[in-house]
């Protein structure tokens, strides 16, 4: 295992929102079921990656396709568990949690912004923003109030009742960011947040992400130099290992 970890030191007064310690993630190729191959080949997507992100940091993950950006992002978001090594979110080792506990951890501690927004077509912008609060069991009034506050904060207060189909790409991404912030998570993870947007709209979205980083730790994976430019730290991955930090 190559020791290529570059871990920013956590600031003294703030515990890291997320840490990765010597993380390895391997995938098995082909079918390994009852009728599958016994010794199916494995692919190592990440190899000994370590990092930590505290609230207030904006960390970018860069690298060519297949370098392990998405894999690392999924691990940091608690969507996946490492084959070896440890990922902790707000102090919880995600590998030690059940699927249900991990879902709960994501709900309360992680906001995810997807490249393709993944808003629910049938719901208004307000209802989309309030979705995580539904799972948290918040009352309708509280959900509505919180969603409207968040939409105001992303300058979409006047679009609260619009359906995603009635919003532009940039507006949809801002709704997605508002949704990611609904539960006031410690960590905001964004996968190619400007990938589907034009340059001007991408700028607005990035400004928004930087603004929220006062309260949250932000990790974004991107090919886009414009997106990486706003980051406090950019981690470059290649073949599953960290090769450079800027």
């Amino acid at each position, binding site marked *: 295992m190559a020791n290529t970890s570059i871990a920013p030191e956590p600031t003294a007064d703030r515990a890291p929102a997320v840490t990765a310690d010597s993380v390895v993630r391997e995938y098995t190729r082909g079918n390994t079921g009852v009728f599958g191959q016994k010794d199916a080949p494995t692919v190592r997507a990440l190899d000994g990656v370590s990092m930590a992100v505290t609230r207030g940091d904006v960390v970018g993950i860069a690298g060519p396709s297949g370098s392990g950006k998405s894999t690392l992002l999924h691990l940091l978001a608690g969507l996946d568990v490492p084959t070896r090594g440890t990922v902790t979110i707000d102090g919880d080792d995600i590998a030690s949690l059940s699927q249900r506990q991990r879902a709960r951890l994501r709900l309360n501690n992680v906001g995810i912004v997807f490249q393709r927004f*993944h808003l629910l077509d*049938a719901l208004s912008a307000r209802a989309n923003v309030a979705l995580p609060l539904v799972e948290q*069991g918040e009352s309708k009034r509280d959900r509505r109030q919180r969603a409207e506050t968040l939409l105001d904060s992303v300058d979409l207060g006047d679009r609260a009742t619009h359906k995603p189909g009635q919003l532009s790409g940039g507006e949809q991404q801002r709704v997605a960011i508002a949704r990611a912030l609904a539960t006031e998570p410690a960590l905001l993870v964004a996968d190619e947040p400007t990938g589907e947007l034009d340059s001007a709209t991408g700028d607005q979205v990035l400004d928004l992400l930087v603004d929220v980083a006062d309260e949250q730790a932000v990790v974004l994976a991107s090919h886009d130099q414009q997106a990486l430019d706003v980051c406090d730290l950019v981690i470059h991955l290649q073949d599953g290992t960290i090769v450079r930090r800027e």
Partner: protein
Amino acid sequence: MFGQRVRSLVGLAVARVAGRFRIAPQRVLLAVLGVGVAVGLMVSVTGVSLGLASQSVVQSDGVDYWLVPEQASVESIAISTGGPRLGDVHRTSQQIGTDDRVDYVTPVLLELVPVRDATTGDRTYVFAVGVVPEPDQTVLDLPAGRLAPGDPYYQNGSYNGPWTGEAILNNAAATVTNASTGSQLTPVGTNRSMTVVNVSDGGVGTAGGGVPVMLVHLSELQELTGSTSGDTADQLLVSTNDPSVKSSLEGRYPETTVVTRSGLSSQRVSASNLPLAVAVAALVSAVVVGVLFVTTLMGLEVSADRQQLGALAGIGFSQRSRSLLVAAETLIISILGGIVGVGIGILGIVGVNGLGEQYFGVDTVAVFEPQLAGYALLVAVGIGLVGALYPVWLSRRGNVLEVLA
């Protein structure tokens, strides 16, 4: 908090189903229609089976209610067992008859009467039914209208009017008494005689085929059997097309029950299991067809919706919540199908009755009862619950990483 979450998830399911109707309605509409047609057919066929059941009841044509003593059960309506009786029946039936909503009302006295064989003079028993006939009325499928109308022997509260001595026999009675039209029958122990004015096919219907029945005027049967004191009878038959009559019949006598001729309860008096078998077959078919529709179309819907379900998983919705969401959506679609099905079923019943009237001269082949609507919705809920199993299973198979990649 859990209850709040479940309510919110159901609300989310409603919003998503409504959204589907707006955005991509084809599959959802097909699922709703599929359940609707299945439930509608079930309602129609069950209506026909109710119609079958009600037609096998011992009844006078068009009679919709029996007023019977409480101790009498629906099953004992056909045969008098010497139980409690209703009194002052001529006056009461006259009062009921003044109600415009009532087409026909008659007290009915049921007695086993020994009579002398018309040929040999041997003693034999017939089941005598005393009624107050009106022209064109049938009672127990016998043409009561062939008797002189009204009850001539009963006049002004006394039994001193003209004695008609008329009797209508069914074939079974004609056989056991060796009588035919014009024959004289003498009830044992009396000096009265009865003249057979008609022999018909009717009788006690499917519930008691083969019972020898003699239809006579009420007051004459009361006289023959000593029931004149108190003017008693076993029941009152009330013919009406207006269901509101039932409430005015209730309370007419203390400790009596008003029994509906048709309706779900009428299955209890049917000796044949055919209507029940038809209804059960309709239920099974509806459930199977409905479940197949819902399962297939909601399965497709879940497959098409994998990205959104994956996104919900990504933002922290537990597997249980996503399953509940999919199950609630399936249930909502089934219930919508059930509502559509009730409409289709009512149309089907109207259509069947129309065809029956046009081609067979039968005015009521199928019967719709309000309870059928509740039954249909219950079946739709059942379809939704069973039909949700596959979509829920399918929704649990999705890998959030595959979906989001």
